[in-house]
């Protein structure tokens, strides 16, 4: 499949490319504030930290050949949309902190997959990992096709349960977020096999909002205790 990755950072291109071997992969990275020196510095610093020597070659080749693009402007800019028209992807992956507008979604073939760190349709919105823990529900990641709403896209491709073993909320979230590439790969396999998606019935769930510091303390203390117990057990 021709896969387009909406990626926050060029520094993530090589890991996506490796994981999606067998697919034709394109990347689009945007600097929402245009020519922002901070954006350039962050990209370079992170790339220097992560890249192996051949990664530089791969990234430069992708840019020079026009397979991938860095746009100094927001995702909805004419330059981004022109690139989407040029690539014409079969499917796209979300790895960028933006909300997608109709014009972008419509240019992405089957749609844009998102890896959401909560179980859908039960947990939509913010702080869903923390809310799942507070309510004693399984934690994990749902891969689904987004729409313009907040986690309301109708087609769920898969849910991967992932019990938390970390002792802080930040570490637990990082662990779940880090599953995105592997789960995107699995989701693409599911789609290629023609398995029908599950229905994201929003009436069966709730929209959640950022959790208070008070409740975050409760969840954080619970994680620390569980981590300690787990360490003792093992």
């Amino acid at each position, binding site marked *: 499949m021709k896969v387009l990755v909406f990626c926050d950072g060029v520094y993530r291109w090589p890991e996506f490319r490796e994981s999606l071997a067998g697919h034709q992969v394109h990347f689009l990275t945007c600097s929402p504030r245009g020519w922002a020196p901070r954006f350039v510095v962050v990209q370079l610093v992170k790339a220097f930290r992560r890249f192996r020597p051949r990664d530089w070659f791969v990234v430069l080749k992708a840019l020079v050949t026009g397979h991938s693009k860095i746009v100094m402007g927001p995702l909805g800019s004419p330059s981004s949309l022109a690139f989407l028209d040029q690539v014409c992807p079969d499917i796209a992956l979300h790895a960028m902190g933006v909300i997608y507008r109709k014009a972008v979604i419509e240019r992405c073939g089957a749609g844009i997959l998102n890896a959401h760190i909560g179980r859908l349709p039960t947990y939509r919105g913010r702080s869903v990992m923390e809310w799942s823990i*507070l309510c004693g529900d399984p934690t994990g990641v749902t891969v689904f096709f987004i729409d313009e709403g907040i986690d309301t896209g109708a087609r769920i491709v898969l849910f991967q349960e992932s019990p938390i073993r970390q002792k802080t909320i930040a570490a637990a979230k990082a662990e779940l977020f880090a599953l995105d590439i592997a789960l995107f790969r699995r989701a693409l396999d599911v789609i290629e096999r023609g398995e029908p998606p599950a229905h994201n019935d929003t009436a069966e769930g*709730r929209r959640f909002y950022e959790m208070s510091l008070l409740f975050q303390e*409760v969840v954080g203390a619970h994680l620390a205790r569980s981590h300690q117990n787990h360490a003792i057990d093992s």
Partner: protein
Amino acid sequence: MIAVSADPVLREAIKTALRRRLATMSSIGAPVFMARCAVEEGEVEEALWFLMVIVRPKLRSAAPLSDEARVMSALALVVARCSWTDLRFVDCLNVLFETWAPKTHPSLRGFFLEWYRHALERMLH
């Protein structure tokens, strides 16, 4: 109605946290009397969304609130729905309390604090 209730393991810890929060608040006004009436589920969800998505950023940046009456009415709906079967509502009040500086819309904040205290007492007693 879909429950958003606490894991039994965490219920005591949540109670303790809410008690701790209540202990930091002193009564500053008259007792609160809130009319309870049946409201549509969508209306309550809308009130929660309005407070968390529209009002909260304005409180954080001390920006003017264009419609104080709507804020009051949303607060009343959320306070009335605070219970152990859906913790999102009391947590909305927790978040507003943590966001709302004393000098920002002080008269409205006075009402909010009384209602928040009332909601906490109702859940804890």
